């Protein structure tokens, strides 16, 4: 039952940590927000990221990291009360509105986001972007999906594979 010994975390001001993006930009955020990342949580529990140290994130650029942190800061309070059983319907609706708005972005940003969320193991963000990508795929034929997501034109082998698959599962292409 012992509270984690966060040292400077329990004396009023929230504990802050510093994250360093691949292009060397420093981001200072509340430890609670950064801890939405399972990867970072361990380091932070170990007392890392405080003071002048900072945690380097060599796989995440600053544009992506700032977007990731925007999500974490918004979701940290709800995550702190364990999925927010006492959150009001208004809170939940607000979070949902935020989420919908949040993924209403360029495909390239979505891609960087899901890669970062995966690297940093931020479950909620991974699911959110996965859901968005799934919505982009729904109701489309394989060729439409390829075009939507900017795949290169299929090679003859790929085309043959697609045709074979479509023949096998003809029912799904009615």
């Amino acid at each position, binding site marked *: 039952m012992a509270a984690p010994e966060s040292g400077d975390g329990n004396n009023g001001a929230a504990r802050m940590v510093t994250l360093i993006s691949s292009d060397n930009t420093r981001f200072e955020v509340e430890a609670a927000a950064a801890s939405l990342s399972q990867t970072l949580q361990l380091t932070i529990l170990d007392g890392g990221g405080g003071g002048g140290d900072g945690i380097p994130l060599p796989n995440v650029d600053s544009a992506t990291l700032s977007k990731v942190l925007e999500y974490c800061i918004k979701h940290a309070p709800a995550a702190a009360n364990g999925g927010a059983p006492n959150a009001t319907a208004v809170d939940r609706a607000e979070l949902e509105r935020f989420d919908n708005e949040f993924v209403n972005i360029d495909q390239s940003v979505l*891609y960087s986001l899901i890669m970062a969320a995966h690297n940093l193991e931020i479950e909620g963000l991974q699911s959110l972007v996965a859901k968005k990508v*799934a919505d982009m795929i729904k109701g489309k034929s394989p060729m439409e999906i390829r075009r939507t*997501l900017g795949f290169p034109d299929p090679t003859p082998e790929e085309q043959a594979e697609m045709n074979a698959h479509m023949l096998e599962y003809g029912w799904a292409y009615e």
Partner: protein
Amino acid sequence: MWSELPEDILTLIFATLEVPDLVRAASVCSSWHSADTSLFDLGLWKQQQQAPCLLYTAESSSSGDSTAGLHSITEKKPYTLSLPDPPIRNRHFIGPAYGWIITADELSELHLLNPITGAQIALPSVTTIKQVTPILDENGLVNRYHSWAAMNSESKPPDIYGLSELRD
């Protein structure tokens, strides 16, 4: 970009798709196909609540007795599945489990059938049940079944069942 998505992220995306979308996504390219395969192999598709699909057969002039209808509630769209023999229209549905359905055909023989992939596994013949023996006709074909109703009642004469009656 998206064509290089790592498999574990792809499976995350696929896990939220309904079956018809999943089937189409699987044919986008070979890495998507293998993500789809491992999704099923790992049983991850069960994590997400699939909206139920209605599987049915119907008298139909166009599609015949070997097709079943699949109605996707989320897409509000009917699909027609071509299924292996024996004709699905003449089988009884015993029940579904893990995407497979158990059917009993007109000979009362049982099959496991995956309506999505069309895969089918014949279960051991009903005549391998100790209490059931086949009655052959003059051509050596199974004509009816003898069946002892209860385990230890072999002193009583067996009941005789028509080929399709045993499944009832």
